[in-house]
């Protein structure tokens, strides 16, 4: 039941505040994690049908009456669903222990679930305006979550995020309206068909520019990125993980590329523009990350940089490039989720995120240090971890597409990436122990467990990249690479 991806979290979220009154901790913990585990299971169970059928279209009737409630699932959004479910489960596991000192777990979980519902909805709907709306669902929840700590900085960051986000949504909406104006429909299939019949290159070009700006801001592409380094570090660690690991990818990358590939159709021009944007993000953010003292801020910039990679891969337009981009999306979701959770562990353990104050933690907190290392190296693209393969595929695709320059920059940017991740390693874990931290203890069970799970995924995907690639990435990439044809096949 595909619809459950939206409904279950929404329902659970709705009852959560009430349940929270009954039991402050246990019930919200169990319920949330159960719901998310169910979703993960669900997404795994869907693999086979999708593998066989290619895509699933569901029309839901409401009390016998046929209403316009339609869901389209193909291997691409199944891949996204799986990623969302997986990472969010890890995050909610982490929250069990982490949220102890924030209190109001029920509220937190409710918002988290709404956000997940929003993302799931965004991924599932085959309709431009619905995309916009679910985008807002996820966004609104995220505004609140960013400010969850209620400090002035958090609120300011959240407000900034809100402001810029609103501008972005507005432009995305503007673009949607223009398209609606041209085709009189919002449904992917109709729009795709309509746009094919029209010859309106320039208008579509401008629409795309608006989309790039709108979704690019959500995805935090340079120069639309500036909200992210404030918003992500301000949020509680699980939320940072959520935002960096999932939200920017779902509401930014997924939406943008779903529309570009499946609705409008990829053109060399778009490819050029997006590759350039991706590359700029990659490099600029990498340099910015270098100068950060706050772990989370550095990770936030790193997210921008890695989104640059993802966009670069997806924008190449070849099946291999898309596969690389998607693979990196997954790997980055896992690894960045891991790293943000890990930063939460660090903060929980030491009470600070300032790299200058940390040092030599590796000895006292081997699990945190080890998982951090795995995540860092995975993102930096050091084999045999997962991130290596995705970067490899992206660069392979770039070379295949005869984009030597981009390939070189991507390579050099990965050196920068390793550079700043080594900074974290050196200052926080690897170096000499700061005397201050000689009595610290390892993070609580669930926090470490979440870290370890994600780290294991990084490693296992690296080692068993072939089955992962064949069952998950390749079909998803093919679905996207079929372009407009994919939507036409749905036959809505």
């Amino acid at each position: 039941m595909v619809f459950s991806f939206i409904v279950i979290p929404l329902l659970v979220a709705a009852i959560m505040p009430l349940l929270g009154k009954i039991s402050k901790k246990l019930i919200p913990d169990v319920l949330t994690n159960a719901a998310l585990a169910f979703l993960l299971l669900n997404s795994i169970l869907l693999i086979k049908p999708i593998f066989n059928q290619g895509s699933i279209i569901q029309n839901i009737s409401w009390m016998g009456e046929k209403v316009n409630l339609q869901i389209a699932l193909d291997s691409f959004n199944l891949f996204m669903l799986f990623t969302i479910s997986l990472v969010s489960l890890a995050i909610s596991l982490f929250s069990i222990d982490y949220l102890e000192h924030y209190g109001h777990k029920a509220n937190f979980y409710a918002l988290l679930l709404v956000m997940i519902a929003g993302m799931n909805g965004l991924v599932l709907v085959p309709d431009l305006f619905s995309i916009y709306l679910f985008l807002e669902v996820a966004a609104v929840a995220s505004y609140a979550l960013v400010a969850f700590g209620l400090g002035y900085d958090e609120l300011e960051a959240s407000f900034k995020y809100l402001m810029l986000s609103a501008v972005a949504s507005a432009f995305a909406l503007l673009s949607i309206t223009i398209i609606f104006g041209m085709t009189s429909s919002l449904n992917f299939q109709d729009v795709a068909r309509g746009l094919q019949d029209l010859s309106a290159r320039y208008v579509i070009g401008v629409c795309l520019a608006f989309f790039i700006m709108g979704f690019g801001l959500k995805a935090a592409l340079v120069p639309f990125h500036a909200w992210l380094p404030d918003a992500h570090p301000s949020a509680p660690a699980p939320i940072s993980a959520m935002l960096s690991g999932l939200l920017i990818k779902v509401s930014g990358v997924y939406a943008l590329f779903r529309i570009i590939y499946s609705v409008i159709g990829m053109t060399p021009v778009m490819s050029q523009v997006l590759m350039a944007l991706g590359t700029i993000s990659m490099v600029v953010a990498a340099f910015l990350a270098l100068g950060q003292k706050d772990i989370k801020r550095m990770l936030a910039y790193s997210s921008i940089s890695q989104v640059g990679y993802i966009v670069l891969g997806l924008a190449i337009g070849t099946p291999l490039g898309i596969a690389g981009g998607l693979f990196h999306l997954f790997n980055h979701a896992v690894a960045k989720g891991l790293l943000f959770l890990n930063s939460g562990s660090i903060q929980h353990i030491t009470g600070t995120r300032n790299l200058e104050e940390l040092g030599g933690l590796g000895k006292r907190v081997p699990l945190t240090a080890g998982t951090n290392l795995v995540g860092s190296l995975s993102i930096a693209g050091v084999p045999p971890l997962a991130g290596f393969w995705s970067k490899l595929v992206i660069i392979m695709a770039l070379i295949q597409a005869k984009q030597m320059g981009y390939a070189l920059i991507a390579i050099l940017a990965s050196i920068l990436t390793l550079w700043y991740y080594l900074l974290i390693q050196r200052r926080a874990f690897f170096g000499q122990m700061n005397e201050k931290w000689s009595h610290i203890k390892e993070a609580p069970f669930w926090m470490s467990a979440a870290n370890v799970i994600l780290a294991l995924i990084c490693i296992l995907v690296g080692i068993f990249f072939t089955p992962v690639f064949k069952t998950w990435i390749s079909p998803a990439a093919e679905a996207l690479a079929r372009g407009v044809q994919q939507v036409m096949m749905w036959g809505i």
Partner: protein
Amino acid sequence: MIIQIILLVGLVIFAGLAILAKDLLKAALSLAVASLFLGIIFFRLSAPYAGVFEISVVAGLITVLFALTISLTRKNDQVQEARLVKIAFPLFFILFLIIDGLVMKSLLLKVPALPAGPEAGTFGQVLWKQRTFDLIAQIGVILAGVLAVLALFRKKEEDKDE
């Protein structure tokens, strides 16, 4: 037409204020007003549902939320604004307006086959029959908003520990 222009000007002014205001609270309020203007414009442009959402989502819930929260947790540190920023933003903004005016006009001329008008039927019918999903989404938004209220206005007992 005059109303339209007034609304547009108001939108621009308040949007600008929202961005330029040093005080977070004022900025939030400006944003709310700007969103309200936008919603009205949507309505007037025969896009009722867009208007509804605009007002409910942005103008209504969120901004007010923020305004309230910020007013509760105000801090007195003044944010330094670089002069460059003061110049750069209006510059870009004006540039955008000009280009927008020029480009959009020519673009709109090129838009082929503009449809006759909004879909038939009342607002409710449209919403129910054709945009059912949006309704769910809307529920989600409202739920999010409610939860946000709960979260942001929670008792701050535990916060004191921090």
